[in-house]
């Protein structure tokens, strides 16, 4: 009898060991967020929210390809296996859904679930309408006019006007489980505690403001993205020194955005510092309202030539990519601009002289900056550095310092608004991951405030025509060519003061293996494992 018990126990032990043979360790990540981002589907807290609680637990109809560190990410099929626009009516998009996909709660994903999720964001009368998710998701899909389920595995979405950038918009929309929402009493707060998506990770423990724990979802539809880890733990650690101390004391294995001055000591302690280019830029957005000195292309070019971008990289401990354009060099939309961004003070002065300025008659103007903010890197020393650079080209800058949230409000209000306090530019960093966020929203005439965020009131018929062309070019390769043309115009006309790109640094224990840092704001944690 005892022998039988022993044999059963041994067999159970072997089975348990076999079950865990593929899963390798627990990864604990210290996020910069001060709270756990929304877990219900449409996340908050910007790019970090989508990175950790969006593409981990959920999928969109169209996902980002996060598998490569060598090239900028592009879109790949997600919960839709294919999508196409109606050749006769280019406002109609048809999405064929992936068969056999199940939510974490076991319910099936189908066209009714897609419609239900769109309603959760767009229809205030729908019982599942969620203001918090709507606030995050609604503005990501401005093109949507209507939607319907054609059959259980086909959805048709109509846009207000033809819009070839629509797939990028739909890649923001995460699919939550309608069945789980019903099961938890039709309540999003309850859903937040026990969320259910179709993503590779399943939330098993959620302590608001403190931690969230995930385990792999064994039924995930994409074999390449089945997680290798046993468990993923996310901890909000908003304070940079606390993150560093947590990593160095072994409380976490990975921290986001270590402070630049901690990098050397982290390396010395044997930590890995992982960086890569991603669609981010640090610029001065220039005002083009009447009377702005930046209306003169010679002044814009002079300013761009006066900036010592390598010096800024040095200031940031090497954690930056000097700008060659609005997009990072090597991006598929970079094109081949004729105007080369370089540090050439003599040429800058020549242009300023032509524009009527000189050492005794410097250009004096005001720029809005914030002392901190999401993606702003180290705004105070960086802006002061740029200020000194521009002074060498007879551009005398004074700063109007406002807090980050105020700067966002000014950015929404526009350069003509009194809140801009007569400034002719603002230091702003941009998420530039798709054609709209990357290029269109900053400069399209129809997006001048209050309709959009063309803060500087730029208006150019040729540029508007190019934007229209992007929206009407449905062939991906052709669309890329148009986007390249737009970017070339951005650079050749020096439409922004283009300074640098962040490299999204992360510090991690030497035990963390397999991570591929995609050139994207979002990342894939599925290939990561912990060395024994």
């Amino acid at each position, binding site marked *: 009898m005892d022998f039988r018990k022993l044999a059963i126990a041994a067999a159970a032990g072997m089975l348990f060991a076999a079950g865990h043979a593929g899963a390798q360790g627990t990864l604990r990540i210290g996020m910069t967020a001060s709270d756990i981002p929304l877990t219900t589907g449409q996340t908050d807290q910007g790019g970090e929210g989508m990175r950790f609680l969006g593409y981990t637990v959920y999928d969109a109809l169209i996902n980002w390809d996060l598998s490569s560190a060598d090239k900028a990410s592009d879109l790949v099929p997600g919960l839709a296996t294919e999508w196409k626009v109606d050749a006769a009516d280019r406002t109609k998009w048809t999405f064929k859904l992936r068969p056999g996909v199940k939510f974490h709660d076991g319910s099936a994903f189908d066209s009714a679930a897609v419609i239900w999720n769109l309603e959760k964001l767009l229809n205030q009368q729908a019982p599942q309408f969620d203001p918090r998710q709507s606030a995050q998701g*609604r503005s990501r899909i401005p093109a949507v006019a209507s939607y319907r389920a054609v059959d259980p595995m086909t959805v048709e979405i109509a846009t207000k006007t033809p819009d070839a950038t629509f797939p990028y918009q739909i890649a923001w929309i995460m699919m939550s489980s309608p069945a789980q929402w019903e099961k938890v009493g039709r309540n999003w707060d309850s859903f937040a505690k026990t969320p259910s998506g179709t993503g590779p990770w399943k939330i098993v423990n959620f302590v*608001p403001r403190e931690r969230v724990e995930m385990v792999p979802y064994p039924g995930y539809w994409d074999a390449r993205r089945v997680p290798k880890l046993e468990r993923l733990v996310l901890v909000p650690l908003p304070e940079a020194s606390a993150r560093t101390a947590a990593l160095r004391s072994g409380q976490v294995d990975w921290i986001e955005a270590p402070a630049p001055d901690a990098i050397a000591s982290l390396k010395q302690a044997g930590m890995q510092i992982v960086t890569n280019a991603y669609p981010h830029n640090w610029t001065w957005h220039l005002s083009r309202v009447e009377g702005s000195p930046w209306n003169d292309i010679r002044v814009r070019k002079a300013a761009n030539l006066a900036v010592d971008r390598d010096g800024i990289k040095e200031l940031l401990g090497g954690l930056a990519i000097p700008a060659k354009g609005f997009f990072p060099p090597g991006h598929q939309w970079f094109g081949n601009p004729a105007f080369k961004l370089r540090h050439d003070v003599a040429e800058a002065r020549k242009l300023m002289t032509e524009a009527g300025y000189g050492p005794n008659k410097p250009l004096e103007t005001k720029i809005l900056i914030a002392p901190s903010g999401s993606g702003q890197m180290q705004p105070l020393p960086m802006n002061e550095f740029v200020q000194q650079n521009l002074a060498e080209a007879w551009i005398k800058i004074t700063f109007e310092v406002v*807090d980050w949230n105020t700067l966002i*409000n000014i950015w929404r209000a526009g350069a003509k608004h009194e809140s801009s306090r007569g400034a002719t530019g603002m230091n702003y960093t941009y998420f530039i991951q798709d054609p709209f966020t990357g290029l269109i929203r900053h400069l399209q005439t129809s997006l001048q405030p209050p309709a959009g965020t063309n803060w500087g009131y730029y208006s150019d018929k040729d540029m508007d025509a190019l934007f229209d062309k992007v929206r009407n070019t449905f062939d991906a390769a052709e669309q890329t060519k148009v986007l390249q043309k737009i970017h070339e115009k951005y650079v050749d006309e020096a439409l922004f003061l283009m300074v640098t790109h962040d490299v999204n640094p992360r510090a991690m224990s030497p035990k963390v293996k397999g991570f591929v840092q995609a050139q994207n704001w979002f990342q894939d944690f599925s290939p990561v494992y912990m060395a024994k």
Partner: protein
Amino acid sequence: MLQYFLKRVLYAIPIALGVSLVCFALVHVAPGDPLASVLPPDASLEMQQLMRTIYGFDRPLPVQFALWLWRAFVGDLGVSIATGRPVAGEVWHAFGNTFMLAALAAAFGFLVGGLLGLLAGYYRGGWIDRTASTLSIAGISVPHYWLGMVMAIVFSVQLNWLPATGAGPGGSAAWSWDWEHVRFLILPALTMSAIPLGIVARSMRALVGDILSQEFVEALRAKGLSERGIFAHILKNAAPTALAVMGLQLGYLLGGSILIETVFAWPGTGFLLGNAILQRDLPLLQGTILVLAMFFVILNLLVDVAQTWLDPRIKRA
């Protein structure tokens, strides 16, 4: 005594109303959009307006205040804009965490500070006084966020004795009073105790010095009372004032420390308040400030009553 207590409770009501008005006004006067935490930066004007209506920010301020006050009166502090969770639950949970921290910090700070002050006052001018005074001045003067960082570097990073951040291996929800969890409390509590330790020590030293110079002590000595007996008299005379100082310090400790709780990622009221400020989460900000202010009012009330109990002359004054 009961009449005095009821009178003090009555006095506390206008204070509470004033505090609620001030905290409501302050968070609305402060710059920043209350919807900043829920809206992406490039949300359209239409979207902003829609959200303003949904969250009730389009109503006149007096109406918003009246509604908020009425709900607060019946125990409903509203719902956090950023998380959608009830503010009362959030504050209560965070307060529980801060209470643990404050209790430990107070126990350590008051005990050590009181003892240091007592010895420094009793042996005024000697080496004990100089050492105790140096320690208490350092406690008051050193920026506590800096002290917290140094403590984390020394005890967590270098020595690896204690954890640097968090409230236990599974978070505060899985808290239990064993070493695995209590070790998370030690560094933030010690850091937090530095200021009250210094203040209590300084106050105690001054009090003891003052009492020692009074005639009744001379008289007690002349009557032949032992030093232990004199010490007891000093303690009794110093107690009401020391209690008032400790009460105030306990109030500060229970309010949590934004900086210390952020440095140690301790999920208390300071951490909550810091988040609410950064996210412009008005309901959470208002609710947290109100609850903390109320605690302060109640604590002062209790200290007043305790002082009267210890020294009935206060009631007559």
